[in-house]
């Protein structure tokens, strides 16, 4: 399985840069497909716009996790910290300063990137299991702080009571969630394009190289720590954007946005879709959220049965192999 991901990992960025691979898809193609599919789904199921919005936001979050886990190869269980910080920052900004959605989005991005910058400087000095446990520690410390600072975050009751002003001064957030869904889809598509370009850039190739062999990349003169730090910060910015979107479209931020359970679920979604490919993140988030929506509405314990079985199946029948098989069937064209 390892060898398959390796060859694919090397093929994916080459395909992403149009100049490097004549047969490969340009960076804008997959985001465009997402845009068309997302818009079509919204048009076909106008009564499920809330679910659609959740799928778009989750996809964005898993996309940022894929940059960390799939591209850079840093297994983390604390990704919810970056999401939650973005959500709380956007919520507090809307409540205390100004309820404009786009400025709030920028604040969320800045908060996510800021936390990733600060915590990355500490976390990225460690590897493997230690790194994993330290990311958990960071998110749990933030959770405890958010619980304690009731005045700012509302503690266990959650942060609520903010009303966003119309998007761009024109589109009001309606009750059916039409504007919210379009807004989330637009942000997802733009950031997906950015992530694709990033992964296909020389910087992205360097990060993939570090994933494959950090010692050799260091010997080649790549500043390993700095590359990973920048990548972690970018992933933090995207996760912060997802947090801000979630705060603005739901008009509430709960402590569960910082929880360990969210981090673990995100990882499940990523593995389900296939890590390291960015499109896999979006597929995984969509499938998982749809499954969750149908199974959890019946009984939360049934949901555990479903996701538990799914997890064991994913290990026994690896999605990477299935993807490779599908791609071979499709004639090797992505």
């Amino acid at each position, binding site marked *: *399985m*390892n060898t398959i991901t390796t060859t694919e990992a090397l093929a994916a960025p080459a395909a992403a840069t149009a100049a490097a691979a004549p047969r490969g898809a340009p960076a804008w193609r997959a985001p465009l497909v997402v845009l068309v599919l997302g818009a079509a789904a919204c048009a076909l199921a106008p009564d499920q716009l809330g679910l659609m919005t959740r799928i778009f936001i989750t996809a964005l979050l898993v996309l940022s996790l894929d940059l960390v886990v799939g591209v850079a190869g840093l*297994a983390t269980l604390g990704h919810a910290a970056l999401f939650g910080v973005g959500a709380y920052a956007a919520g507090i900004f809307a409540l205390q300063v100004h309820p404009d959605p786009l400025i709030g989005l920028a604040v969320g991005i800045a908060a996510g990137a800021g936390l990733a910058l600060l915590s990355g400087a*500490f976390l990225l000095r*460690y590897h493997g*299991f*230690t790194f994993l*446990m*330290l990311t*958990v*520690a*960071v998110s*749990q*410390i933030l*959770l*405890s*702080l958010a*619980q*304690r600072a009731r005045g700012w975050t509302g503690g266990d009751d959650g942060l609520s009571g903010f009303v966003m002003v119309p998007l761009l001064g024109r589109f009001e957030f309606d009750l059916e969630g039409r504007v919210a869904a379009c807004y989330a889809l637009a942000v997802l598509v733009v950031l997906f394009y950015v992530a694709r370009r990033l992964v296909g850039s020389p910087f992205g190739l360097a990060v993939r190289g570090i994933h494959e062999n950090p010692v050799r990349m260091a010997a080649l003169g790549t500043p390993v720590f700095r590359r990973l730090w920048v990548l972690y910060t970018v992933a933090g910015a995207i996760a912060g954007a997802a947090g801000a979107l979630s705060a603005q479209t739901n008009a509430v931020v709960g402590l569960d946005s910082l929880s*360990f*359970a969210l981090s*673990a679920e995100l990882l*499940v979604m990523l*593995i389900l879709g296939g890590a390291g490919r960015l499109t896999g993140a979006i597929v995984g988030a969509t499938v998982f959220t749809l499954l969750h929506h149908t199974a959890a509405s019946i009984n939360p*314990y*049934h949901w*555990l*049965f479903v*996701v*538990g*079985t*799914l*997890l*064991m199946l*994913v*290990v*026994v029948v*690896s999605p990477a192999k299935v993807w490779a098989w599908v791609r071979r069937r499709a004639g090797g064209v992505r």
Partner: protein
Amino acid sequence: MNTFLNIMIDGLAYSMVLFVISVGLSVTLGLMRFVNLSHGAFAMVGGYCAALLTREAQWSFWLAVPAAVAATAVLGAALEMLVLRHLYRRKELDQVLFTIGLSFVLIAATNAAVGPQVQLIPLPSLLAGSVDLGFRTLPTQRLLVIAAGCTVAALAAWAVTRTRFGIWLRATVDHSGTASTLGIPIRTVQCASFAAGAALAGLGGILGAELMPLEPYYALKYLMLVLVVVAVGGMGSIAGTLVAAILLGLIETASKYLASEWGSLFFFVAMAVLLAWRPNGLLKR
């Protein structure tokens, strides 16, 4: 002063429960390189078996506890033989996903079979009373917990370093191929150490039932605590796990006594500091 002594004694009991559950995981993780996140579920199974045997089947406590521990060991051995041994050579992430999925299924199954309410293990009259320590009274059960923790620590250290089985285990870990050609039954060794780890988790689940209430989400709720202890103590190091369990158990208890409004903040800060200081475990440089 009184508060200090209270913290020390309650913290010690808590630490011992943490240690008994963690040491099994430390062995599978460190010695067999298998990331077993269903370890919390084993503790839960042990606790549930003991609770059901004493309450529903009216068994004596002293009979029910060994039976529950044995049942957990059998479950661990069966899982190891049927599925988990195929995952030894897989990537860590695969092991993590599979065992987390297994925990989810066990949680859902427990809930479906027994229900979501908290399970209590009725104590025999010998343990239900309390001992007068002069400055406070202490439930006798806590004394049993502390004694059991010390016994497990001593036995585990002795078994790994002094017995033939311990030698086989370490040889299998170092190079299973060579160990096998020397006639060491490596499959038996792996299976037995996995079962022993599961049994210890079950014992910890029973001993800690008063401190960590048994309910279906138990498997995930306390998994994080156990993982933290193993990470800080250093994988595969029994002494390190003991030191880490005592340190972190005391810190958690002290912060519950003195600063409960901060939640688990101090526990995780302590973990981050200790891990940053000694990334490979407290007792390893």
